[in-house]
């Protein structure tokens, strides 16, 4: 059964929506996320929607629900990577997503959450940092993958090259 992966990064949870969301997948994501927030004590949730070509009221409502749910569990939600055409369409559609904060890129999203949530590495979930950029490599790798499809600044890393072979920008 399909599931949208939820990655843990410090005290944040990272969700990248790469597939067309349908009812069951969206409900499963809500369930999985709330369980992971409680299990990990995460203080923030980053949802990457840069792969989504459209956001209709169904997906918008799901993002709102996740934000409300997370807030009840003491975690902030930031949606990152919305495409410009999607933003223009949402405004015209008249869809407002109450409680959903947005940031242009994953980096900005991290900064936004970082203001309230300290991204720390605890000993038990240590992540190697062999590229020496002071960030966990998992993050660098993710940022590179983002950069690979034009989602983030290439500067996000020492890990350039790792995103190669990924998708090319399709915006």
């Amino acid at each position, binding site marked *: 059964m399909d599931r949208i992966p939820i990655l843990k990064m410090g005290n944040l949870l990272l969700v990248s929506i790469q597939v*067309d969301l*349908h*009812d*069951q997948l969206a409900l499963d994501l809500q369930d999985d996320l709330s369980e992971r927030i409680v299990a990990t004590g995460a203080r923030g949730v980053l949802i990457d929607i840069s792969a989504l*070509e*459209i*956001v*209709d*009221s*169904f997906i918008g*409502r799901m993002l709102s629900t996740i934000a409300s749910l997370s807030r009840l569990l003491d975690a902030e939600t930031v949606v990152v990577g919305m*495409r*410009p*055409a*999607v933003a*223009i*369409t949402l405004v*015209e*559609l*008249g*869809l407002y997503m109450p409680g959903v904060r947005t940031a242009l890129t994953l980096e900005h999203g991290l900064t936004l959450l970082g203001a309230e949530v300290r991204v720390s590495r605890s000993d038990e979930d240590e992540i190697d940092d062999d590229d020496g950029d002071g960030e966990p490599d998992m993050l660098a790798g993710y940022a590179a993958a983002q950069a690979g499809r034009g989602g983030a600044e290439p500067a996000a890393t020492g890990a350039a090259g790792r995103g190669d072979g990924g998708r090319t920008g399709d915006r």
Partner: protein
Amino acid sequence: MIGNPGGSLPGREMTGTDPQRHPIVTESDVVRVRRVRQVVRALAVAAKLSLVDQTKMVTAASELARNTLVYGGGGEMMIDIVDNGRRHGVRAVFTDTGPGIPDLGLALTEGWTSGSGLGLGLTGSRRLVDEFTIDSSPGVGTTVRVVKWSR
């Protein structure tokens, strides 16, 4: 019938591609609505709509397809490329044989919702397209026709 002022009538001559018929049925709605989005995107590209207009048309179709499923109990979408002599456009017609909408004026009122949605389906879609007409009869069904023209 309620339509945008200046919208062309359904019977008006337009040339373009042969219409494609796409069922929107409750069974495997996931696949169906996704398929609707893919088809609309493909024709919007073929009609040379800008990226923003493609996105608006696909989003409107997604909302209407969901309406067809959720409120109409399933139905179909007919889609084709139309040409009014000056511009190309994409026309999509969503038809269901569901319960119909008793009060169209009310259904098209900003913020109105039957309860389970956010009230964006019809009014939101109407803002995203260039032409919007709706026909609905209680007990017979609902037909929504939308057109997005290239600039």
